[in-house]
């Protein structure tokens, strides 16, 4: 797959002196769903804002489908749709008018059929004549998505689209996002809900303190960085881990009823066989066991907490 978005050495220092981005390099492949994760203030929104033309970069270069975002801004921006993080809508416009406004703004003539389809996909059709100020927060979020889709973008930025949205609506949005991806739209998603990225993304990028610290295929990332935990539920509680088991670096839970063994899935030997033999030799009996794969959330927390 070829890149639809190419970012090279992109830096941004605000007038206050805060360096929001530090020589960011990133390639986004055509048609993929890329999840950009990062804690608050990591630089996610600044990165998106520069690409979309809302913030001026201090240095570096960005191209969208080969079009430079500064020199050839018309061609570049025509391909981009942006759903901003904040619920910024007009108050007095109707849903229908505001979505058509967005289409016109992006240089497209009227297409009522397309706008109707977008509104129906987002369950907004019955609200089309409602003024925006009468809508709930979740509905306004849908309107922002509809506005971003009104000009048929090929590259869609969803900047925390499900923040403050209830579970049902979130699932609706995921459905829409998947359907968009099926039509060939490239999607870049920033989110605080790691399960969203885990569920939707093809690749995951992690940004922290203005630097991209990791870009990886999601499955590979979980495989590479994923840890597993084996929990042994003991037949009888113990007060301390026997010395004979010290080399396995086990953890004993607070009630003394379970031993937890953490191992690396990448290793050729997980050490489970030796552990079980040593436990048997130590005379400890267990009544049950289970294993658990670490989630993307745990991986993310480990990454951003790691000393740089």
């Amino acid at each position: 797959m070829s890149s639809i978005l190419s970012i090279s050495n992109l830096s941004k220092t605000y007038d206050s002196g805060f360096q929001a981005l530090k020589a960011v390099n990133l390639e986004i492949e055509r048609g993929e769903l890329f999840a950009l994760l990062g804690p608050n203030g990591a630089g996610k929104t600044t990165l998106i804002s520069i690409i979309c033309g809302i913030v001026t970069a201090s240095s570096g270069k960005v191209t969208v489908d080969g079009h430079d975002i500064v020199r050839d801004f018309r061609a570049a921006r025509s391909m981009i749709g942006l759903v901003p993080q904040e619920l910024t809508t007009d108050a007095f416009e109707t849903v229908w008018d505001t979505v058509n406004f967005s289409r016109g703004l992006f240089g497209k003539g009227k297409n009522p059929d397309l706008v109707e389809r977008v509104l129906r996909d987002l369950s907004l059709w019955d609200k089309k004549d409602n003024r925006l100020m009468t809508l709930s927060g979740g509905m306004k979020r849908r309107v922002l998505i509809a506005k971003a889709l009104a000009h048929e973008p090929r590259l869609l930025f969803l900047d925390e689209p499900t923040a403050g949205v209830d579970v049902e609506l979130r699932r609706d949005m995921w459905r829409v996002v998947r359907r968009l991806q099926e039509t060939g739209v490239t999607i870049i998603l920033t989110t605080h809900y790691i399960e969203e990225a885990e569920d939707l993304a093809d690749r995951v990028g992690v940004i922290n303190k203005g630097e991209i610290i990791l870009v990886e295929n999601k499955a590979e990332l979980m495989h590479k960085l994923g840890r597993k935990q084996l929990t042994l539920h003991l037949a009888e509680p113990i007060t301390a881990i026997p010395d004979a088991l010290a080399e396995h670096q086990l953890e004993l839970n607070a009630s003394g009823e379970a031993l937890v063994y953490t191992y690396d899935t990448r290793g050729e030997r997980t050490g489970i066989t030796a552990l079980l033999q040593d436990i048997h030799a130590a005379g400890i009996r267990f009544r049950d066991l289970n294993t658990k794969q670490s989630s993307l959330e745990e991986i993310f927390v480990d990454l951003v907490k790691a000393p740089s």
Partner: protein
Amino acid sequence: MNLYAISAIYRFEMARTGRTLFQSIISPVISTSLYFVVFGAAIGSRISEVDGVSYGAFIVPGLIMLSLLTQSLSNASFGIYFPRFTGTIYEVLSAPVSYLEIVIAYVGAAATKSIIVGLIILATAGLFVPLEIQHPLWMLLFLVLTSVTFALFGFIIGIWAGNFEQLQLVPLLIVTPLAFLGGSFYSISMLPPAWQTVTLFNPVVYLISGFRWSFYGMADVGVGVSLAMTLLFLAICIAIVAWIFKTGYRLKS
């Protein structure tokens, strides 16, 4: 040229006028009518003619200009400030729209509204006093140039303003006094010589004088000077707007 975008912004702004019909159109008509009642009928009947023109008719160009200035300014400043305030400006900034197109759309809409208001006031004035327009094309030229210039000025204020108070500050403290002291209700020849010289530093004098000349063929300063000063003010506003967009002042961080 992204004509669809210009049209979208222009229609959006004009729709705002439709939604706020009272505030946008009816309110200035009512206030102007009150001026005619007070200055034209009540006080004007006791004031002698000015250069052969009844006082009621004399103040018509000044009153239209007064509304034109304030309407152009407030429409344009509010038009660009409100999306900045609500955050919806993100959409305009991220759209494939050039700065020139943004200015044409916002300033064009503000100027259109103020011209409509000006023409309505002119029609309203016709109900109170007999009107004559000796140079209708010049009148339209001054009407358009002034509304565009002050819409540009309003656009600058709308971008500069950090809050609603600042948005009102320039129109209230600078433009309205300049308009009142610029000869809306009197000929500057009525002032003592020293004040006449001071008044010539007021740019509104040239707008009103030129506009009044297009009605009655009488002016405080030559019509060529009026036109030149109007164009100079227009050029200054264009230069400031160009600088704003070049630097992203208060629009982009």
